[in-house]
């Protein structure tokens, strides 16, 4: 009896939270400058409420994570990671520009390696990070073993993934899957 009440509570909470966020998102995107300065008109605002409701009932199950996922801690660890990732994007562009103008060599190779990551979010975040950091692009991921197939443009970028493993450790730290 208590278990079903808890599940029901969580469901109501998810729907309410998703609806609030979706409605604020709609206000930010379309309503603020167009609808609100005019005389108050419920039919215009009701379009936004309707759209937010439809999106809410389609997505509330995956939008709000289950209990005990430590979302706040993961978010707090994720924000510095985004800053580091923006710096890596800058380095990646400098690196590829050097290769375009012939300062560094182009010597492509395909490498495979295993990681300790298992959850969907961690796998996707790491695959995107590989593509954004200097000289490497993800080709394929095998989620069961955390195995990545990566195309590296030269030996240096390939070694930074297989030997140094700084990024694996950072993603593992953010998603707590070391």
């Amino acid at each position: 009896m208590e278990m079903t009440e808890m599940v029901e509570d969580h469901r109501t909470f998810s729907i309410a939270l998703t609806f609030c966020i979706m409605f604020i998102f709609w206000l930010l995107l379309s309503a603020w400058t167009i609808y609100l300065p005019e005389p108050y008109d419920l039919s215009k605002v009701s379009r936004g409420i309707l759209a937010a409701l439809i999106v809410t009932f389609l997505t509330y199950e995956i939008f709000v994570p289950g209990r005990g996922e430590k979302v706040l801690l993961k978010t707090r660890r994720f924000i510095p990671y985004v800053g580091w990732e923006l710096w890596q994007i800058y380095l990646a562009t400098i690196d590829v520009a050097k290769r375009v103008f012939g300062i560094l060599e182009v010597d492509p190779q395909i490498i495979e390696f295993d990681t300790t990551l298992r959850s969907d979010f961690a796998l996707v975040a790491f695959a995107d990070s590989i593509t954004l950091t200097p000289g490497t692009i993800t080709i394929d991921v095998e989620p069961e073993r955390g195995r990545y197939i990566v195309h590296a443009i030269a030996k240096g970028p390939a070694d930074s993934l297989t030997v140094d493993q700084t990024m694996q450790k950072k993603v593992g730290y953010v998603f707590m899957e070391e």
Partner: protein
Amino acid sequence: MLAIDVISTIFLAAGSLIMITGTVGLLKFPDFYTRLHATGKCDTLGQILIILGCMIYEGFTFITIKLLLVSAFYLLAGPASTHALMKAAYVTGLPVWKKGDKRM
């Protein structure tokens, strides 16, 4: 006002320059995979700089928030589309260029 114009123009010019570098790489690199390296990476920083220039020019309005969301969406969608192209080429068996081979 003039200072904002100058700063945003510098950002737009830097972004365009990086986009041009990516295009040169697209024409110069030897095979499909390496060409994706050039476009995939240069476009990401290029769009960040161009949108940053637009945001500085616009000041703090609701258009700035929309531009920020566009940039954030590109940061998620750009690597995903590059990866999709790469995987499609790899699965269909496109040969990988090795050093010393003929240009493809």
